[in-house]
């Protein structure tokens, strides 16, 4: 393995990329517009939730509850009858229906502890949980304010002060931006190395290299460093200009540490790209394979939903994916401002995975060239 060859071949890759407008547009798009829009488009968990109220009490209290729901969390509630409820929920018109029973106010004041029923369309998981919680606390506070006028000081005076750390407003846009950066890193590094390799073989240029005094290892390493460098630079620029700049996300931790992690992640994913290209010999097969690999990487790495909630077997399997460790590292460093002392296990894991992928892809790559 000679460094000079690796350098020369890498420079050639970079020159080639520079003349490929489609790929350049894709890179720029993935690291700017795509991050920006997906951060901005990320709706609040509870946004304009459809709520209807069946008011069988028609008391001042029930009227008070009805007026407590308003946008942006909820649409203005529809007042419907018991009979309409089923049909409207079946058709998906309402996500929540609150049913205030007859004589609710009277029973409440009489201490008979009446029951309000909340119907939730549980096929809409994203709103079902958070919305249920919100409705519960809204109704509770309305009822207790109302009741306080009629009863003495018979409550326990414990206040719960909730504070969110690292993202005080729980702004989903911040999270969305960083998740999108992580996804872009994985997608682009795989596409850039994989598609480029397939194209080189289709054009016969890779064969041409082999009659020259260069080894397959040199060819592969040159692809890894050149494409990795491109994505690394794009990531750094995008973090500074788009995530911190345009989106105003306060990135807490050390950029250098995050970029070190990104470099290790890129080492693993570029190897993965080469591996996929050697498996799917043609563009359509590579396209299908890409979807099969990319989607699990993105959905199960912990970037979109918390890892703790996945079945244990999935959690264990996903430890083999570089993305999982990279997501942990990125969240620790970027949001929680963690240092090397905290994230070294992730760095080590990425390095090990990268080395295994490299060894494996190199073997496939050598066979692919025959």
């Amino acid at each position, binding site marked *: 393995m000679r460094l000079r060859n690796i350098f020369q071949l890498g420079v050639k890759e970079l020159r080639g990329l520079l003349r490929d407008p489609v790929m350049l547009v894709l890179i720029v798009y993935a690291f700017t517009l795509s991050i920006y829009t997906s951060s901005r488009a990320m709706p609040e968990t509870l946004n*304009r939730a459809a709520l209807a109220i069946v008011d069988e009490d028609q008391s001042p209290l029930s009227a008070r509850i009805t007026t407590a729901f308003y946008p942006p969390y909820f649409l203005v509630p529809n007042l419907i009858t018991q009979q309409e409820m089923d049909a409207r929920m079946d058709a998906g018109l309402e996500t929540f229906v609150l049913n205030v029973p007859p004589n609710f106010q009277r029973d409440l004041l009489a201490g008979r502890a009446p029951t309000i029923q*909340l*119907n*939730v369309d549980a096929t809409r998981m994203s709103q079902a949980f958070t919305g249920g919680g919100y409705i*519960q606390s809204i109704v509770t506070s309305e009822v207790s304010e109302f009741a306080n006028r009629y009863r003495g000081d*018979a*409550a326990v005076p414990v206040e719960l002060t*909730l504070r969110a750390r690292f993202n005080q407003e729980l702004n989903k846009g911040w999270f969305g931006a960083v998740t999108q950066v992580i996804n872009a890193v994985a997608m682009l590094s795989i596409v850039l190395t994989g598609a480029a390799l397939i194209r080189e073989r289709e054009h016969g240029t890779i064969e041409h290299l082999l009659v020259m*005094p260069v080894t397959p290892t040199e060819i592969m390493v040159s692809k890894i460093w050149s494409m990795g460098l491109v994505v690394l630079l794009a990531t750094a620029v995008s973090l500074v200009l788009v995530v911190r700049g345009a989106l105003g996300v306060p990135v807490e931790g050390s950029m250098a540490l995050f970029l070190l992690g990104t470099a290790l992640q890129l080492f693993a994913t570029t190897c993965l790209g080469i591996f996929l290209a050697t498996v799917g010999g043609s563009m359509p097969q590579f396209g299908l394979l890409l979807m099969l690999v990319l989607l699990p990487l993105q959905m199960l790495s912990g970037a979109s939903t918390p890892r703790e909630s996945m079945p244990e077997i999935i959690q264990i399997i996903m430890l083999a994916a570089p993305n999982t460790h990279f997501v942990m590292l990125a969240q620790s460093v970027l949001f929680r*401002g963690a240092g090397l002392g905290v994230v070294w296990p992730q760095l080590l894991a990425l390095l090990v995975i990268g080395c295994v992928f490299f060894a494996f892809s190199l073997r496939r790559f050598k066979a692919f060239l025959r």
Partner: protein
Amino acid sequence: MTAGQAGDPVVRLRDVGLRYGQTQALDGITLDLPAGCMVGLIGPDGVGKSSLLSLISGARAVQQGRVDVLGGDISDPAHRAGIYARNAYMPQGLGKNLYPTLSVFENVDFFGRLFGHGKAEREQRIAELLQSTGLAPFADRPAGKLSGGMKQKLGLCCSLIHDPDLLILDEPTTGVDPLSRRQFWELIDEIRRGRAGMSVIVATAYMEEAARFDWLVAMDGGKVLATGTPQELLERTGTDNLDAAFVALLPEERRHGHHAVVIPPRTPTADEQPAIEAENLTMRFGSFTAVDHVNFRIGRGEIFGFLGSNGCGKTTTMKMLTGLLAASEGTAKLFGQQVDSRNIAIRRRVGYMSQAFSLYGELTVRQNLDLHARLFDMPPATIPGRIEEMVERFGLKDVMDALPDALPLGIRQRLSLAVAMIHAPEILILDEPTSGVDPVARDGFWQILSDLSRKDQVTIFVSTHFMNEAELCDRISLMHAGKVLVSDTPAAIVQKRGAATLEEAFIGYLEDAISQQSAGKPAAAPAAPPVKAAPVPQAVPKRGFSLRRLFAYSRREALELQRDPIRATLALLGSVILMFVIGYGVNMDVEDLTFAVLDRDDTTISRDYTLQIAGSRYFTERPPIVDYNDLDRRMRSGEVTLAIEIPPGFARDIARGKPVEVGAWIDGAMPSRAETVRGYVQGMHQSWLAERARRMYGAAAAAGSFDLAIRYRYNPDIQSLVAMVPAVIPLLLLMIPAMLAVLSVVREKELGSIINFYVTPVTRLEFLLGKQLPYILLAMLNFLMLTAFAVFIFRVPFTGSFLTYAAAAVLYVTVTTGMGLVMSTFLRSQIAAIFGTVLVTIVPAVQFSGVIDPVSSLQGAGALIGQIYPATHFITISRGTFSKALNFADLWTAFLPLLIAVPVLLGLGVAFLRKQGN
């Protein structure tokens, strides 16, 4: 027959022009092609022959001027529809319009169906054609596995199935061995004898072939140089062969400096070590022997030619010599050293130029030369000098900063040679270096080779299928089916065979080899006498809509899908994997979150408070927190998601009725998780308070207390799978069928078989529906599999009407494949198709069709897209039938948008699809 006497011309061109972007392919061509005879277009690659033929065939739309074919304007759709059945077009490239995975019979059969022949008629015609072309014994062989010559014969069968009046052949014999070439022309003569009055238009780069045509059109640079019979052209130029005549016809500046190549005789040194030596060199791919015990010794400075057709093993032999392929048997030696792919040192002494142009199109000429010099480890100081020298020698001065793709073929070939020579190798291995290069450039190229060999003592190993090039070599080997037939000087070979020309000698050897091969077997291809049965009545293809043509496309698409199981398997298996991943991955329920307590009170009551949280299934407790530093560190590392701080005097203050504050910190790095945690903690806090109040104040606390009973409908256990799976099935039935459908058309565009749609009577509607049908079936199979997996493996209860669900699925996959087809009408490359499909399916489907956020919560453009996007409605139906126990009476409103989308998409597809290329 003499040209021009057959009455009206078959083709009349008036001022025809054509440009591709910046390139003027045809320039003001005005010409009449005589009917009833064989017209040849001659000239090298890239002079506009193929463009002209594609205009005449109707495959490409006319841009400029007027093209009349068979007595009408080809730009007039009505006239074109009439002549589809009267002409036949065989595009350039071996088997370009054939379907490689289909068998010989299936290929011809497909064309027969396109022309509307009934079963009996079709079978009779196919039998006749295969018999007369000698393909009958190979009827079941896939077209992709045929030799070049057989592919072209098959292409001819496909073209002749409907008895055309005008046959258009674009370089039918390029890359075919001389014997097959001769057989091909004999076949054409035979057919013309049987069908007097049929006009044939042929393009060719082989000048010696053109001598047998009735009338010639010599072309260069998109213009006509001259027309006339071969004899007339020879007389006019005063030459004795068409090659020379063509050069003489070129304008002065193109001919500049041209002279016939003369290679001085070689004086071999007696005791030399051979530069290249092959001993029993053999290469097997599986059971197929590509190269079979090949032997040769090539001396230093010798020009050694390798002759043979495409696929005879020339390229494989060369790859073994360069170490690109490891020989299965035998040895190859360069300068007495065995070739070994790991031996880097030997590569420095060899220069290789592969068949396809393989330099980097994205690097300039200078950068290409520089890169190769550096890779060959030349001392950096010497590189500029060497580049200068190469540029001088190969005449590249004016193009140093151009990109290779923008250069004419001849210059590109010189650049390839310069690159192969940059490190001053002692051996040059050249794989068909001049194919497609015009005669002037070719002669120039050979002059360079001559100098290299004679002056610099470079050993040259070159493969070619041009006989006049072979004659320039010191020695040649004739190769066929992996074997070397003979190896000697060209003159000796001709003499040994007693033939008049090298070509005849080669044909003689080929015939011997083939008769040896098939000894014992019934006489093969060439021996079969052409059968001429009574002419079958000409079927008049139906104008307008024809189910038969539609099914012809469906049948073919289904066969291809069946022969490419990887695609179908990836689609079916992939969708199940994705359903699994998304079903598990998108889990809104949060469980097993870590929390720890900083308990500064440490009393029974404070521990009771902690226990309330630790006891729920949502949280698991970690060791207590000691101080703020500890809290900070553990939250930063992500070990603890929730931290609770209970102040000192907690129990005492509660007892005294003094307000107390409990602090809770949530990790906000993942906002949706934090929201859920907040909800849980608040809920638990409330219920703990109520519980305490009851204990402390008894009944007095009851006033004002109420219950909020939450009923989770349709999914009482609130499982992610139950919520997600009915939404994921519509997503998968959107993405994958759309992707397959779009690729099926775009692939035809990339590979060239789309031409069959351009030049046969198939209508746009037939083409689209025919292509769509198999993918609808595949998608329905996918639908059944996914539903079965959901119900039986994932245990998602199915409560509604399955029939309603299945009926909606049929409509839905018709819509999704239709979306793919509409996109395919304007996308060109497969990469673009993949990206495009992802963009128009995944994004709107995931964000706007109610998978995660209900459509009613969306606003603005998102809401509008959500309301009309088909996935929205199928998700409503899917959730309704899966979870809500609904049937058609409840869901019919969701059917309406799907019912409307089907004809709308079909209409768009028909409107956008072009029946001609441009």
